[in-house]
Each structure stands twice: as structure tokens, then as C-alpha cells.
């Protein structure tokens, strides 16, 4: 009984953490280049709608591709406005999120009708990793997830390698620390930053895809509900390092999964309390962590 409960809790943790991980990894790359993109909430939403439309038309993997496209579209516009034209990043990001809420709402209603309830989509089935899935407790939690979760985990070392072992990563980090000095060293800062934002957008799109295709199974207006913003906090908590970002994402996944655990123990507790929890936790954790980590020096400029 307890064992199955823990397994269910861990499995939920990983499932919920997956979209957060994608978005936070993407934002890590973006911010390492010196750009803060509050529009990833919008990019994630666009990815979610893309996943729904794509999956309806051509199955779950078409949904994944369409989600990447949606994320790229939103972040591409953001990059053109901020990196290209030099507009203020934070308010532009907020505006991109607003625009995404409006447009996805309109497109969704146009595609699925005014009611839209009960939309069920072809989803990504859990994929058991042979051998590992059989490990008690941990097996079903970590190794019986959708393919997207494994892609997310695989991205962690890949991005670490990209950031710290490639010239692109070096140029990206240099651009994030000091655009002027990076330029003096011959780095084409704007181009590098645009690429950083686009990588962030593509991963935010994947975040939306995993939310729709591997977690919820449907689309709803404003369904990302601030997960993009939480991802930004996860980046801070993860000190802009892919490995620690993974840890931070799992921590938040666990916090959100707690509601399943508590709801079975405390059925009288209003469910909104569990809705509040992740946001309050984010604030608390930020208060404890900020000041102990160092952000890229040119972030937001």
C-alpha cells in the first residue's frame, strides 16, 4: 500500500517535472546568453496548442513537431523585438505571453468549437525501459515514462556539453556575461543571443508538448498556468547549470505531486491549497537562494 503510494508519487513527480525541465533547460540556454525571456510561458502555451493540433492531424509525434514550431514562432518574434530591435525584455516577454494567451484561445475555439470540453488527444504512451522498469519503486517512477521524459533527461548532459565544451557555448556564456567584451573578442553577440532564445523557444515548445501529450491529454485555455514563470525560478534555483536545473525541476515536480499524496491523506483539505503550494514554495525557495547564486552579469540588458 505505502510502497505503491510512493511509486505513484514519484511517477507523478517525474511526469509533472518533465515540462518544467524542458522549459527551464531552454530558459537556461537563453539566459546564459544574457536574455531573460518571460515569454516562455507564451511559447509553452503555443507549444501546447501546436501539440494538440498536430496530434489531432497526424498523431502524437506530429504533435511534438508542431509544438516545437509553436515555441520557435513565439520566441522568434520575441528575439526579433528584443535582441534585434533592442526593446526592453521583461515587458516584451509579458506582452508575448499575453498575445499567446489571446491567439491560442482564439485558434483553439476556431479549431475545436466553442465548447471544447472533452477534447481527447492521441497521447504518447509510457515507454518502459527494458530491465530498469522492473526495479521496485524507482523503476515505474523513472523508467516507465513517455519518450519525452527520456529526451528531457538526455538533454541535461547534452546541454552541459554544449555550454561548456563547445565554442558556441563559450561564445554564448561570454555574451551573457558582457556583450561588449564578447564583441571585442569577435563574437557576433546578436546572432548568438538569437540562437539562444530560439533554443529556449524550441524547448518551451517541447514543454508544452509534454504537458499536453504526456501529462494532461487535452488542451485548455491558459493551461500552462504560470509553469513558464515557475521555470524561470527553477533556472535561478538551478544556478544556470543544466544538472542543478534538473534537480530543481524534480523538486518542483515533487511539490506539485504532493497534492496527490495529501489529497488521499487529507480529503477535507480544499484543493486550492495544493494549487497555491507550488507558487508559495517558489517564492520561499527564491528568497533562500537568490544572493547565493550569480546570474549572468549582462542578463536582461
Amino acid at each position: 500500500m505505502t510502497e505503491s503510494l510512493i511509486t505513484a508519487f514519484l511517477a507523478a513527480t517525474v511526469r509533472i517535472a518533465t515540462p518544467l525541465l524542458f522549459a527551464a533547460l531552454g530558459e537556461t540556454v537563453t539566459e546564459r546568453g544574457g536574455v531573460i525571456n518571460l515569454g516562455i510561458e507564451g511559447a509553452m502555451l503555443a507549444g501546447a496548442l501546436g501539440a494538440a493540433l498536430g496530434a489531432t492531424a497526424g498523431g502524437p509525434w506530429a504533435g511534438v513537431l508542431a509544438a516545437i514550431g509553436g515555441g520557435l514562432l513565439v520566441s522568434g518574434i520575441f528575439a526579433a523585438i528584443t535582441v534585434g530591435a533592442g526593446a526592453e525584455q521583461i515587458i516584451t516577454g509579458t506582452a508575448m505571453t499575453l498575445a499567446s494567451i489571446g491567439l491560442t484561445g482564439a485558434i483553439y475555439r476556431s479549431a475545436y468549437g466553442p465548447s471544447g470540453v472533452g477534447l481527447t488527444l492521441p497521447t504518447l504512451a509510457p515507454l518502459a525501459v527494458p530491465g530498469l522498469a522492473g526495479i521496485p519503486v524507482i523503476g515505474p517512477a523513472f523508467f516507465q515514462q513517455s519518450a519525452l521524459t527520456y529526451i528531457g533527461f538526455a538533454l541535461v548532459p547534452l546541454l552541459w556539453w554544449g555550454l561548456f565544451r563547445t565554442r558556441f557555448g563559450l561564445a554564448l556564456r561570454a555574451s551573457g556575461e558582457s556583450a561588449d567584451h564578447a564583441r571585442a573578442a569577435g563574437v557576433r553577440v546578436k546572432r548568438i543571443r538569437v540562437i539562444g532564445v530560439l533554443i529556449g523557444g524550441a524547448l518551451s515548445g517541447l514543454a508544452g508538448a509534454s504537458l499536453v501529450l504526456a501529462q494532461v491529454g487535452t488542451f485548455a485555455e491558459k493551461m500552462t498556468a504560470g509553469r513558464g514563470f515557475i521555470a524561470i525560478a527553477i533556472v535561478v534555483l538551478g544556478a544556470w547549470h543544466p544538472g542543478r536545473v534538473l534537480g530543481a525541476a524534480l523538486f518542483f515536480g515533487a511539490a506539485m505531486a504532493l497534492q496527490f499524496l495529501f489529497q488521499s491523506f487529507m480529503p477535507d483539505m480544499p484543493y486550492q491549497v495544493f494549487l497555491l503550494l507550488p507558487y508559495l514554495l517558489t517564492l520561499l525557495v527564491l528568497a533562500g537562494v537568490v544572493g547565493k547564486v550569480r546570474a549572468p552579469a549582462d542578463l536582461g540588458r
Partner: protein
Amino acid sequence: MPSALSLRNISRQFGTVTALRAVTFELAVGEVHALLGENGAGKSTLMKVAFGLVRPDSGSIAVDGIPVQLRSPVEARRAGIGMVHQHFTSISALTVWENVALTAGWSVRRPGVVAERVHALAQHAGLALDPRSIVRDLTAGLKQRLEVLKAIAADARILLLDEPSSVLSPAEAEQFLGQITAFKALGISTVLITHKLSEALGVADTVTVLRHGSVVHHGPIRETNARTLARHLLGEVSIDRPQLPPPVPGNIVVRASQLSVDRLGVGGTGLRRATFSARAGEVIGIAAIEGNGQRELLRAIAGLVRVAGGSLEVTAPVALVPEDRTSEALIGDFTLAENLVLSQGRSAPWIHGPWIDWPDVHARTRELIERFEVRASGSAMLARELSGGNQQRLVIAAALERRPAVLVAENPTRGLDFKASADVHERLRATAAAGVAVIVYLADLDELLAVADRVVVLTAGIAHEMTPGASRTAIGRLMLAGPEE
């Protein structure tokens, strides 16, 4: 001798200002060529042209006799030109090897190999550096070494050094200049941009002097001397300090005893148990190498930072002329009138209860800019539209408007040309003559000696009060006694 770099008839205009007027500059292979000129003479602009940072309006460039177009630093680097800027351009959060690899375009797949390569190169060039250090932790001298190392790693055969000694202590500067002559052995041709005669005479083979954007002198260094160069450099302006009557010592208005102040920012030592005093009517010069506690001392006197230990008595009011004109002293997007309101606080005559009497502010601003000869179109002009010299006049005017007993000035001539600097010196002397205690830090020791009645040397946060007649050598030696190498 064959020409390594040849700039012919280069002209460049910025708005209404002509920075370069048909300048021709020839760098021979293997030589050290000093490019002399006062601030604003055009030497930095000329070198920016040579490094692809500024496009000339007309003129031609050739490297090794082959005509080239330099549209960006990338193209300049490809042509074998490396530049060491006045301000460090390394990225402080990254390691030495990462900075070198970034500039030189090396692969970073195997950090150990890159670090080893950087180490070997540093040894070869005589610029010892630990490749794994984080740049933030390096001293100014080591950062300067890294700047040169980056250029050499990028296969530079032509090295443009823009006032390399301006950020170094005298000892570091001397050591660095010694290294320049050693670069000849590596087949590197060097341009040394400087406004110091001694540096040019000490290490250069050839000298070119720029004034107001034109070449006024060119020739081998051995055929000239300090007096001749000074005349070329300054034109007819006298460099002698105006003779002022010796100060009449007034009351002690600043008394610091065992004063300690925590360090500001990341570098430096802070102030440790400093003891000294200042009297009304004298100019006290603070002599110190960057990061030895001068910023902390001056800001403590100005009441901007907390005293951590000891005691500090200052007669109010105190006025501060902060080092960074454009971000600390003025708000560029505010009008001159608004900047005056900012500087005068709530005791100003135009404040009535919570209200500001703007017509009064504008009238007084107009009167002030006239009295202090600030060249401005009116009180509603934006501060950022003023020239550097006029901004500083406005800042000093606003400081004196507070009728201070003590005036604190942080490097007030930074970035100003000769005339504007002389104007600041004169204003500081006149202020002291009017009975104010003036405490001034100037990065340039010669300038400081020219303006101060007596000097307080700060070394690693400890103050040494010098007698009024102390020699330059004695002061210089004391400045170096600190932990900096």
C-alpha cells in the same frame, strides 16, 4: 624598413567634430612606435580605425603593403592586428584559458589541452599567467597581461596598445613597458598609444604626435627630446601650474582617526585604520593605485558609506564630485535644471514645503551656467547633450552651490582633454583659496602633484600623510608598498 601597417590620409568626422584630419601613420616591421597625443587628440580614434571599430570617412589602409578593408575587429584580427584596449575587455566570470580560446577561436572540447596550450604560449611570450584562474581574481597587472596574451594567441603580428599603463601601478607599468621591447624578438610590431612623454622616450623607436586630429610631428625617437615633444604635444599651452599664494591654514574640518571602511564592490582592500586630517583652505591630494581604499575614504567623508570602525568627524556640508560623471553625478535624460534640483536636495531655495518652484529653478540654473561658463543652450537642455568638459563644469558648479565646507572630488579630470583638465585644476585651487577644504583623488600622479598642497598616500587601505615638500619618488615608492605585486 618594410611597412607592417600603413594608414594613409585617414579622415573621420563625428557630428560636427573632426576627430582625424588626413592623418598618415606608418608602422615599420618590428618597431615600437609611440603614438602621442593629449586626450581628444584623435589617437584612440586612429587606432580604432586600424582595428576596424571605426570606419574612416576617407583614406586607405594597408597591411604588409597589401591594401585591406577593415570593417570589423574580426577582419582586423584576420589581417594580423591585435588591440589591447584602455579598459580591460576580458570576461571576468570566465577563466584565463576560456578568454584566450574565445578570442583566438580555439576549440574548447578538451579544457586540459587548451589550458596547457595557453600556459605554453604565456611562457613563450614572457607573460606568466595561470590559465585556470578566474579573471575576476586577477590583479590589474595580470589582467593587462591577459589582454596582450589574447592578442598574441590570435596570431597578432601588429599590436595596438591603447594607454596600457593608465590602469597600472607605476611598478606594474614599468614592468609591462619592459615586456613590450621583448615582443620585437617575437617578430611583433607595436604601436604604443600614450600621453606620457616618459613612456615614449623610454621604449619607442619612432614617435608620431597627434594634435587636434592632425599629425604635428613624426620621426625617430633618438632625434628628439622631452622638451621638443612637449611643445608638439601641447602646442602653445603652458603646462606650468599657476602660481598661487601658499594656503593660510584654517580650522581642521575633517578628522579621521583609525578609520576603517568596508570595501566597495568586488576588488580592492577597503580602508583600514586610516588617520589624517584636513584644514579649511588647503587642497589635499590622495595618491593611490586603483583599489587601495581611496574610493572608500572619499565616500565615507561624503557620508555615502557607513564607517566600519574608528572615528570620522566632518564639518558639514560636504559636497562630492563623483568619479563617473554620466551615471553617478548626472542623469543624462534630465534637463540641466532637473539635475540641479537633484544635486541640491531639500534645503535648496526653490523648495517650499513639499513643492518645487520650477520657474525659480530655471532662473537659477541659467544664472549658474553663466557664472561657471557651462556652454549650454539653456536650462532645459538635456545633460547628456553637454560635452564632457561642460558636464564636469556643471557638476562642480552644482557641488559648490551647496556652499560646502569640504569638497570631495574623485578623479574629476577623467576623460577630459588638457584644457578642460586645467580648468578643473584651477577651479579646485580657487575653491580652496575661498576657504574650503578640497580633498581630491587623481589617477595621474603628476597631475595630482600639480594641484595638491600636500599628499596623503593610501596603500592597501592605510593612510600616510606626506609633508608638503615630499618628492615624487618618495610618494611613488610608498604607493607601491602594498600587497599588489
